[in-house]
């Protein structure tokens, strides 16, 4: 009958816990008699896990991720725009800034003085005065 050896897995006596020396369990380790056992064990797990890992990688790209990527670009841009706007507001309207006007205002700008001469087709203001005089006389 075999004598049961005692000691640690590496052959040393075990004194780390003050207990009696340990019974060797390494005989139950399948890797003892088959050096490639644990590599094959791991390979089988990883082979079976490949599909699930791929599924997880694919599922990792979500709408949330896309939005997050966008937000990484948009948020700094929005912040920069807000900062520029704040600066402009803080500085107030510039004296040298050009006047702004609407389209209608632009079309009628400075036209009032030329309406009557244009209406009567003449350059001389005297003709208009004669017309007014004549109309009042009759």
């Amino acid at each position, binding site marked *: *009958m*075999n004598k*049961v050896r*005692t000691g640690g*897995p590496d052959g040393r006596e075990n004194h*780390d*816990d003050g*207990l*009696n020396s*340990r*019974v*060797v*369990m*390494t*005989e*139950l*380790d*399948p890797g003892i*008699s088959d050096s490639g056992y*644990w590599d094959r*064990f*791991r390979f*089988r*797990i*990883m082979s*079976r*896990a*490949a599909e*699930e*890992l*791929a*599924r*997880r*990688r*694919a*599922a*990792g790209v979500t709408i949330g991720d896309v939005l997050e990527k966008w937000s990484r670009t948009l948020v700094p841009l929005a912040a920069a725009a807000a900062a520029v706007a704040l600066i402009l507001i803080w500085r107030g309207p510039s004296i040298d800034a050009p006047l702004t006007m609407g389209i209608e205002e632009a079309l009628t700008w400075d036209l009032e003085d030329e309406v009557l001469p244009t209406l009567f087709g003449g350059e001389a203001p005297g003709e208009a005065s004669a017309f007014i005089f004549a109309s009042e006389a009759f």
Partner: protein
Amino acid sequence: MVVMGRPDDSELVRRARGGDGDAFGVLVDRYMRAAYAVALSVTGSHEDAEDAAQESFMVALQKLEECRSPERFAGWLLTIVRNRSRNLVRRESLRDTDELPASARSRAPTPDRETERSELRGRLAEALDALPQAQREIVLLHDLEGWKHREIAERLEIPAGTVRSHLHFARKALRDALDESPVRGAGGKRA
């Protein structure tokens, strides 16, 4: 958190959730022997322990989001291993009933059954079989896998004093059994 280039379990779990095969591979490297030891402590059969341990890693990967405390991945994984192993034993005990004699239950014949090593394995398996489950698991994790008391306590979430006590009584029982028992071949499955 990474300590001296060795990522901790929570970091590896986080990466594995995203499908990082390297991270999952590190977790497998780190705990495959412990998973086998725990499965062996429940099934008492090499083939069943191998199946249960490998299957448990797959279940763990599929349910990784349910690991609420990734830093306690080891304890969570070993709970899966224990449950899968018990289910396997239960299923096989039902299937084996009235089918095979106990001597033929091993799926693959052991080529070196008659050798010295096989005799010792058989005696160890039988001696282990006589231990309570908790003692069996702890003595295998400590003496086969090489975990320290502190590691076992943390990962199984039991007091360190309980670990030492279980280990002490398990070793004593094993020594007594191995001193007295005749050689009876490799241990069979537990029902």
